[in-house]
């Protein structure tokens, strides 16, 4: 067991507007060990990005609220930090890569300056040293260092994403949160970027949270994997456990609905119905209406997280058949 770098406990995040309260993240628990990659998978609106923004303390002002929970980073609760302390953590200890590389870069500054800026800010070094570091970073992500004097528009989409990654990694953060880093890119470019990220991760030992909707990317990159549905983590485990032996009906159904390259099926498996309205979540299992394996408990109570095998958890009543009996008291609590 390595050292635990991030420990999210019972995190609840709501978006509150005049019209509605969106329950974006509901009591999630996550752990990440140093040097590992955790994949956060789920469909649009499952709360993946909100979780990441919550950890970064970058939820939109006034609207996004952390209702309860703890985010322990290297043993300290990030939720207790002041905005000033957070600023020195962001970029230096935790970095984030956003989905769209086109908007993440400042178009009127050279890429070298943009990398150097972060280094200067956090390492308190001279401009010259920072620029030197910027060139090193460019070389590391596979861009000729001499191009540090060029502007973002002179680079292609894949190159821009490399630069964004270079900025994120410039201060050697302990934790990198990558929010769909390759979704906007073509497959051959995605392959390049993923390859590079894996190489960097191995060399620097950075811990990483990789947010994606692509199960393929998770299978290739991650050590652990958490499947999110309607703001909850419905399944968590080592990637092999989750992929070889999916336990939650949602994960199973998701797996079956992807067209496969090597098997021929005439019709794809479909998950019936649709995701429930996040501003009006049921008190019982959120997936129950679409589930093929539901029993009478599912529409009455919210299931809790069960240890299905060592280090592999699923939030489903299937694995607690004795529910009505002894566990009832614990469930009501």
């Amino acid at each position, binding site marked *: 067991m390595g050292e635990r770098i991030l420990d999210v406990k019972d995190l609840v995040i709501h978006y509150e507007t005049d019209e509605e309260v969106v329950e974006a993240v509901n009591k999630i628990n996550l752990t990440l060990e140093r040097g590992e990659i955790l994949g956060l998978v789920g469909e649009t609106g499952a709360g993946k990005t909100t979780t990441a923004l919550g950890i970064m303390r970058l939820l939109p002002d006034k609207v996004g609220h952390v209702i309860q929970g703890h985010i322990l980073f290297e043993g300290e609760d990030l939720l207790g930090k002041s905005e000033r302390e957070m600023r020195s953590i962001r970029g230096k200890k935790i970095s984030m890569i956003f989905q769209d590389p086109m908007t993440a870069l400042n178009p009127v500054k050279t890429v070298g300056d943009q990398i150097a800026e972060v280094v200067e800010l956090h390492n308190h070094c001279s401009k010259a040293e920072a620029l030197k570091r910027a060139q090193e970073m460019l070389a590391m992500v596979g861009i000729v260092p001499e191009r540090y004097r060029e502007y973002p528009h002179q680079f292609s989409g894949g190159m821009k994403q490399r630069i964004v990654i270079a900025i994120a990694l410039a201060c050697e953060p302990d934790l990198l949160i990558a929010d769909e880093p390759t979704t906007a890119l073509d*497959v051959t470019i995605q392959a390049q970027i993923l*390859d590079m990220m894996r190489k960097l991760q191995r060399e620097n030992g950075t811990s990483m949270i990789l947010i994606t909707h692509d199960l393929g990317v998770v299978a290739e990159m991650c050590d652990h994997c958490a499947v999110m549905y309607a703001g909850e983590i419905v399944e968590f485990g080592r990637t092999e456990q989750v992929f070889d032996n999916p336990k939650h009906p949602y994960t199973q159904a998701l797996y079956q609905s992807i067209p496969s390259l090597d098997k021929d099926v005439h*019709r794809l498996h479909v998950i019936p119905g649709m995701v429930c309205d996040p501003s009006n979540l049921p008190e019982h299992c959120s997936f129950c209406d679409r589930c093929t394996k539901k029993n009478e408990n599912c529409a009455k109570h919210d299931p809790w997280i069960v240890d299905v095998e060592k280090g592999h958890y699923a939030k489903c009543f299937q694995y607690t058949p004795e529910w009505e009996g002894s566990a009832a008291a614990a469930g009501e609590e």
Partner: protein
Amino acid sequence: MEKNLLEVKNLKKYFSTPHGLLHAVDNVTFNIEKGKTIGIVGESGCGKSTLGKTLMRLHTPTSGQVLYKGTDIASMPIKEFKKNYRSHIQMIFQDPYASLDPRMSVLQLVEEPIRVNNRKLSRAEVSSKAREMMELVGLAKRLENSYPHELDGGRRQRIGIARALSLNPEFIVCDEPVSALDVSIQAQILNLLQDLQEQRGLTYMFITHDMSVVKHISDDIAVMYLGQMIEKCPADEIFRDTIHPYSQALLSAIPIPDVHARHDRMVLKGELTSPINPKPCCRFAARCPYATDKCRAEEPMLRELKPNHQVACHYAEKFVK
């Protein structure tokens, strides 16, 4: 040739840009049989969408022929095309968020094609036909008065499909219809498209960048690179017997949702450039790991290597398994 619904011959679409002539679609030739699906795969900027829009006459082709049931629809005046062929060839658009007018309700959106193409129908007839179409694509009647922004991606794409189908087309260009959707929704839409094809004998041209989707839905697959078709073969063959180095790289780049399939990829260097004033050489030569001087000097033509399997590579024989 009766069985070919559409024959595309040497189709070209060039755009003039400030930097020169952009060869978006360059000398593309292929046939589509009636009732079949041809999948067009390629990365962004390879001209696959332009190809679709050129067949639809949303772009005017620069040169070449498009024979629809034997009539050349590429060179006929646009007025004549609109009058006689518009309803035969329809299109489903990529982004269901952007391709629906936000100020129209679901019913209005589905009514629109019926109304503009059948001036004689009364309001009630138009509405009842639109409701029929909604039912066909699985849109509940209660959604009639909703607006696109209230619906999820899958339902919006169903509206797009209903709009295209309401004109009773025989040929539908599907331009990345599921790329913007989540996997579970994607499966619903793919199944719907398949069902409609079986019921109505539709012919599809399915444009996408997703190899697994294209394999699932297509009978034939054509791979495009920088405006040219570089490989075309039956769908199951492209995965068993990939010949063109680019197709190989494209396949090897797909992340496979299986932990035990972690493999060494063939990672291509560089990126797709835009085909502005291309030199007469193999357009893939700059990124191809096997490129020789011949590749950089001479443009390979699409040639039949095996029955129904065409490749544009000088050294194609070398890569046959």
